[in-house]
């Protein structure tokens, strides 16, 4: 069953989500005044759902005020869709309440697990890509889409290793999930770069194996590098710096292939001044325009 991401549909916006096909920023409470006074604000904001699960106070007041002027993308970080155990009904209920309260233009979650045996690990943990996991993930996504009555956008993970028992590659697994559940994709381009570096894959081949027509939103962020004595390195997805050049290049490639998409700049650790974040979003808009023009010239 295919669900709309946005109920009811808003005229004049792309049919796939209610987010404009331009750049937005991850919202931080400290940026509230700057954002509200920005004469040229970003096209949308995204918030982590779990930060708005308190009963009241400033977080809800700010989000309510922003919602008056900007579309909101609600991004869950704790549902643990990849858990071998059942989804937490209380947490799904909290997400449903937030979706009903704010009617976000898009709702997304991760292809990962974060809870096990009653412990929440506050991390996006990797999945073994096999038939049993595929079955479980699809059941969970069906359940979320049924309960929230909207299409979920699934985010590709940052991974630091692969399981010996995996029988699918990551993009094959994601493509199978999209086919079976009708969910959309939140393509995190930084995660593609990080995972491909860490696991020795070609990012362009990774992207080519994904169902690009299902991509409804993009994430861009910075990463850190951990260098080892043997010359190898791991890239760590930490959302703590500007978007790196290789990630911008991959982004340009994605836009050339898929056209402009709602694109979010994420910056969650060592959060900079609002102006720095806004400038990154402007770069994404400029890059999308140029990549599209270049693609048209090539086609002509």
């Amino acid at each position, binding site marked *: 069953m295919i669900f709309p991401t946005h109920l009811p549909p808003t005229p004049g916006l792309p049919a796939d989500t209610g987010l404009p096909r331009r750049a937005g920023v991850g919202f931080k409470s400290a940026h509230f005044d700057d954002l509200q006074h920005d004469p040229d604000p970003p096209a949308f904001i995204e918030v982590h759902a*779990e930060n708005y*699960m*308190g*009963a*009241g*106070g*400033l*977080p*809800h*007041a700010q989000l309510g005020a922003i919602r008056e002027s900007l579309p909101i993308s609600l991004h869950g*970080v*704790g*549902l*643990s869709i990849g*858990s*071998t*155990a059942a989804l*937490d009904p209380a*947490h799904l209920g*909290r997400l449903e309440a937030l979706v009903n309260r704010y009617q976000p233009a898009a709702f997304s979650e991760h292809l990962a*697990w*974060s*809870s*096990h*045996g*009653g*412990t*929440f*690990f*506050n*991390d996006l*943990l990797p999945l*073994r890509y096999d038939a*049993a*996991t595929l079955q*479980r993930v699809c059941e969970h996504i069906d359940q979320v889409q049924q309960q929230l009555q909207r299409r979920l956008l699934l985010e590709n993970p940052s991974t*630091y*290793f*692969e*399981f*010996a*028992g995996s029988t699918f590659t990551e993009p094959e697994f994601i493509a199978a999930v999209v086919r079976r559940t009708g969910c959309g994709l939140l393509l995190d381009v930084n995660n593609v770069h990080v995972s491909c570096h*860490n*696991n020795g894959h070609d990012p362009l081949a990774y992207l080519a194996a994904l169902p690009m027509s299902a991509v409804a939103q993009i994430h861009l962020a910075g990463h850190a590098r*951990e260098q*080892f004595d043997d010359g*190898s390195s*791991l890239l*760590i997805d930490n959302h703590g710096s500007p978007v790196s050049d290789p990630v911008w290049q991959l982004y340009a490639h994605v836009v050339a292939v898929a056209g402009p998409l709602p694109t979010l700049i994420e910056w969650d650790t060592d959060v900079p001044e609002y102006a720095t974040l806004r400038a990154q979003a402007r770069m994404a808009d400029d890059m999308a325009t140029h990549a599209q023009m270049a693609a048209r010239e090539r086609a002509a």
Partner: protein
Amino acid sequence: MTAAYQHEFAAALRDPARPAVQSLRGATLADRARRFAVHRNNFVASLVDALAASFPVTQALVGEGFFAAMARERVFQQPPRSPVLIDYVDGFADFIADFSPAATVPYLADVARIEALRVRAFHAADALPLPEVAYRDLAASPAALADTRLTLHPSCHWMRSRHAAYSIWQAHQDPDPAGALAVVDIDRAEDVLVTRATFDVAVVALPHGAFEFLEAVRTGLTLATAFNAADSPAAGVDCGELFSLLIRHGLAVSAQTQAET
């Protein structure tokens, strides 16, 4: 069988002495270990950081290194049960009270209690404080005032410390915490109120009798009974001061006046 890999993974995250998960691809043992270490670190560091963000004065009192070691110990012994990390502030003060290396800082747990109440108050349900005119009307009619019961704001909580927990916390709001701390008598017991009328959380030292007064009000007793509860012979309790405390901090959200039957 499907569940087994997550079970092994979770157990290894919860116990740093356990080896890395072995079912992952990696050239060498060392390579597998350092890849898995990214998740070991994410789990612990993200939660230590979350606690540090919620407990800045507790951290300042013992220093970053001690705080990180203490928070890390808590993450292993009492990991979060819920993805709503607002809830993870609960229980940290009790953990600190039982954490023997912190025993030399006897007021630490109470300062952490203040900071946990601040987080709770910040996220508490919204409610409109009773307008000042409602208090004026009550003050104009002592008989009605005596028979009035108040409903307190959802954010409003208070605590009792055997130490000067409020003064210690307050000193850290000063640009020169060391100078402000120097004049604090840490062995003086203090009662502390944490509340918010709008969005800014207030932390207030309670006057004598206010703790008993607020306890009585919360139980649903009339103001006459609550004033009596506050008025112990030992302490000079000023009922006018207690009444103005309610007004100043917008502690009540509704009032019901009904004579005792």
